[in-house]
């Protein structure tokens, strides 16, 4: 394994018995599947310190995230792309404004540069035509595409995805996964992706470098 961008060290998910340790290597994709009761859904939030583990530590880009001040954690999270379960889009903003929000709030880019970046992201995710719609007016697939565009807005080194393909077709899931990885396949150019899901389409599984299954608090590699 290469240098890890995310590391769980003896982390106990609240409500589960056993500690788990796991590394997400740079440029690699890691998937953890498991039933709802396994606590797999809590791992993305624990990785970003949106939830606290019952025990254990999480290292993000080598930094122990639980040791950072609340202000430093906010700044740190901007280095990571995050797609929460569902989509987490703000319902009083259009899809376009949702994608623009992290750029407008967390970068010093000019409005012109932000608009340029937005055009690229909306075209890449193929939602330019639906960009003016509010989430309630968009389809589930369009919402998920917008949420992914928002997560990729800063071109992060690491992407954390919670149940990203739930309700999507296998073809769309495969397309979104390729976009998540960062397009080009040259060595070192791909983005690290940490995903949790209860289920992923079969055709995707072979494209993920490290797959695990979490059951009864035990993490087991899927061969």
């Amino acid at each position, binding site marked *: 394994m290469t240098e890890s961008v995310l590391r769980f060290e003896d982390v106990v998910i609240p409500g589960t018995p056993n500690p788990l340790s796991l590394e997400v290597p740079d440029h690699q994709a890691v998937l953890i599947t498991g039933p709802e009761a396994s606590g797999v859904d809590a791992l993305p*939030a624990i990785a*970003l310190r*949106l939830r606290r583990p019952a025990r254990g530590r999480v290292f993000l880009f080598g930094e122990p995230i639980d040791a950072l001040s609340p*202000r430093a954690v*906010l*700044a*740190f*999270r*901007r280095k990571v792309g*995050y797609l*929460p*379960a*569902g*989509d*987490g*889009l*703000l*319902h*009083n903003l259009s899809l376009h404004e949702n994608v623009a*929000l*992290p750029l*407008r*709030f*967390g*970068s*010093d*880019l000019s409005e012109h540069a932000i608009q340029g970046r937005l055009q690229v992201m909306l075209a890449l995710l193929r939602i330019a035509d639906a960009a003016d719609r509010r989430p309630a007016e968009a389809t589930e697939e369009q919402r998920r595409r917008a949420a992914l565009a*928002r997560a990729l807005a800063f071109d992060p080194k690491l992407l954390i995805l919670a149940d990203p393909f739930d309700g999507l077709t296998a073809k769309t899931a495969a397309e979104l996964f390729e976009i998540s990885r960062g397009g080009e396949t040259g060595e070192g150019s791909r983005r690290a992706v940490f995903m949790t899901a209860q289920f992923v389409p079969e055709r995707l599984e072979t494209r993920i470098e490290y797959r695990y299954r979490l059951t009864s608090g035990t993490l087991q590699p899927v061969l």
Partner: protein
Amino acid sequence: MTTPVAAFGRGVARTVAWIGALARFSFEAGRATRWFPRAGRRVAVRVLAKQVRFTALQAIPLIVILASILSFLVISQATRELGRLGATELIGRLMVVVIVRELGPLLTALVVAGRSGTAIAAELATNKVMGELNALLGMGIDPLHYLVLPRLGAAILSVFGLIICFDLVAILAGYVAAGSAGMTSARYFDIVLASLTFRDVWLTAAKGLAFGVIIGIVPAYHGLAIRGSPTEVPVASSQAVMGSILVIFVCSGLFVALLT
């Protein structure tokens, strides 16, 4: 025998806990202003402008109607009654103390709490239910910066602006009422302006600020305090309005008791 005492004790404990939680939330909101991200200010100003449009501009017709009717009723009755006693010059003090300084800020705050307090609480509670708060935090955006502080700023500006609107309309409506009772415009404005002191102006301004803070903080606290169930949204709205009205009345009483 102990049941009523225990119930009373529980009520007191709940109230004290509520005051403590509100104080803590206000402190956190105040502290968050110190490290507002530079880039985020532009977005926050946009949110603030949107809120001012809803909270202040759209409330102007209601404020104008309330101020006109209240002032017309009070001044027309007072002109008639005080005229019999030969004390019409007291209309000026009545207008300034009762309407401009006391009822203007109080009624304006109640209108804004009823209209916008519910909206703030319901909107923030819905944000929480829909997982938008976690999404904001996951993007490195503090919900205090994006959701709470712009609404707090907008509530302060709106209440302040609407109080000025209420008082101006009330003075004009008082003029119409006094005029219909036979008082000349010159005399009316003479006695009103002669009764208006600097103390009245700053007390009214201080109330605008205080009531604005209450309407910005109390509904935001109740909106964000829910655990995440959709059924809590209407409860949060209701608690926000009740809480805001209660704190506004207590604050108004404190102004009268301590500063007048």
